[in-house]
């Protein structure tokens, strides 16, 4: 998504641009696949950063202006409302922030003032200025006197976008607080496929070129400068600037000294297992189905780290993709359940399977999916007897299809905020530059192009 946004931005001003897509479909993590004639989205639970078309300065609307796409023609559906559920308390939030603040005033009266101050602080804070890493947990202690509330606020923000274990950078917290609580969840009308088509058609109408099945094998380097790429089929494409949107690890795999430190430093430890269940609409009244997302922790102390077992069933999110306002009803509805998972354990099981101990990986995946289903049944009501189709993907599936090293969907724990590498004309955009979610990733592409390509003078083709 970040690469496509960067390319649209350049094509808009007449720069010659080629998007190299490794797969046969665009979107990376946010793509889709078909099973039984039905389209399933891969990454999308909900888009963050909701803003109505009238709010000019909101990230979503700035993004659309920058890409020269009509925001008014882009139909959105806002969430019904989501829940943060802990053993001893729960909180509901919608795209109207007063819902959450009223809940907090009622349930955590001692923290009401602190929340107001925190909100003001978030609005004033520039998360993109250069600063050392600061602990979000410690910063929150200064505002919120209720330790449980701190855990509850961190839960959805970490699950939906934190690439570090246990704590998050204050700047990332600010970005996520804004994106999730102050702006909120929505989804586009139609599917992610329609959204990708919109972007692709727009880009091509601006004169941009896309190559599919065009994975990059290596970067062409001379005199400490990148001057092009070599594709897997041996073809070389020369370029004045290369924008890499394959993450820090992928970029270092192509050019080991492009970023400082070791490649392993950039491998994220957090990955997830997600199960998708398809149920008939008629089965829905039997389960709790009034929320768009339920973020849960079965411990009052929220634990966000790579689990010691294959999955951490005590933490996760239950998502109902049909629970957005004004969506057309469908005979079948999805429930998606996501838990933190251990990439290394799944990888080892896969290796064992490859070495003749057949079935290890598949058995593990099935056993843990069943345990998760039983657990979720206790939370929202048992629906296992009504499942007409189900699919589960693991950290390995994510790594295979999205190219995210170790299946770390939120990328590297170290962010390259300026998008610069050691090579002047090799730039990094996307999740590892520090923006998150679909809107964030696309804004990353736009920002990198604005800061490092458009504003530098150069020939008209690039």
């Amino acid at each position: 998504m970040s690469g496509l946004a960067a390319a649209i931005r350049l094509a808009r001003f007449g720069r010659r641009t080629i998007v190299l897509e490794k797969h046969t479909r665009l979107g990376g993590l946010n793509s889709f696949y078909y099973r039984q004639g039905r389209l399933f989205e891969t990454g999308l639970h909900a888009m963050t950063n909701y803003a109505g078309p009238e709010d000019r300065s909101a990230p979503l609307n700035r993004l659309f202006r920058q890409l020269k796409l009509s925001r008014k023609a882009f139909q959105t559906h806002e969430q019904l409302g989501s829940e943060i559920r802990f053993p001893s308390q729960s909180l509901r939030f919608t795209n109207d922030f007063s819902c959450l603040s009223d809940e907090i005033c009622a349930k955590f009266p001692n923290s009401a003032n602190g929340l107001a101050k925190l909100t003001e602080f978030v609005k004033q804070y520039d998360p993109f200025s250069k600063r050392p890493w600061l602990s979000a947990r410690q910063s929150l202690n200064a505002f919120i006197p209720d330790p449980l509330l701190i855990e509850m606020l961190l839960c959805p923000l970490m699950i939906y976008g934190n690439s570090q274990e246990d704590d998050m950078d204050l700047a990332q917290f600010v970005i996520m607080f804004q994106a999730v609580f102050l702006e909120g969840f929505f989804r586009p009308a139609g599917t992610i496929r329609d959204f990708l088509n919109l972007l692709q058609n727009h880009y091509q109408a601006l004169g941009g070129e896309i190559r599919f099945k065009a994975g990059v094998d290596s970067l062409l380097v001379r005199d400490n400068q990148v001057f092009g790429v070599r594709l897997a089929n041996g073809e070389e494409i020369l370029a004045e600037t290369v924008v890499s949107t394959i993450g820090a690890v992928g970029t270092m795999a192509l050019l080991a000294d492009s970023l400082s430190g070791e490649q392993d430093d950039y491998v994220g430890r957090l990955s997830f297992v997600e199960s998708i269940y398809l149920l008939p609409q008629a089965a829905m009244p039997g389960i709790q189905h009034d929320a768009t997302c339920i973020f849960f922790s079965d411990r009052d102390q929220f634990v966000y780290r790579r689990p010691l077992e294959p999955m951490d069933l005590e933490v996760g999110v239950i998502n109902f993709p049909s629970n957005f306002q004004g969506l057309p009803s469908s005979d079948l509805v999805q429930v998606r359940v996501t838990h933190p998972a251990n990439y290394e354990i799944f990888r080892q099981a896969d290796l064992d399977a490859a070495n003749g101990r057949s079935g290890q990986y598949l058995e593990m995946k099935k056993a843990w999916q069943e345990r998760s289903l039983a657990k979720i049944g206790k939370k929202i009501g048992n629906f296992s007897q009504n499942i007409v189709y189900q699919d589960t993907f693991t950290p390995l599936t994510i790594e295979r299809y999205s190219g995210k090293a170790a299946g770390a969907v939120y990328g590297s724990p170290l962010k390259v905020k300026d998008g610069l590498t050691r090579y002047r004309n090799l730039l990094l955009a996307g999740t590892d530059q520090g923006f998150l979610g679909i809107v964030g990733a696309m804004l990353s592409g736009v920002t990198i192009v604005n800061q490092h390509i458009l504003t530098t003078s150069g020939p008209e083709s690039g």
Partner: protein
Amino acid sequence: MTRDAISDVIIEIIKDIDEDADTATLASDKPLRDQLDLDSMDFLDIVMELRKRYKLQIPEEDYPQLATLDSCVNYLEPKLRDI
């Protein structure tokens, strides 16, 4: 290009950037950014569009000279004389 023509071009570019921009009531001696609620990213689009249309390279240190419609015209008039 005449001063009026340059002014029309700027307004056309702004309308192109923002479908809702109300340019009818624009005061030519007041900052464009305040009147139209343009942010720095929108502002960059004006510069880039001028570059695309007229092959004009406007260095970053000259951006302040594009603050109002009048100052845009003053700045661009000598550069667009032959167009």
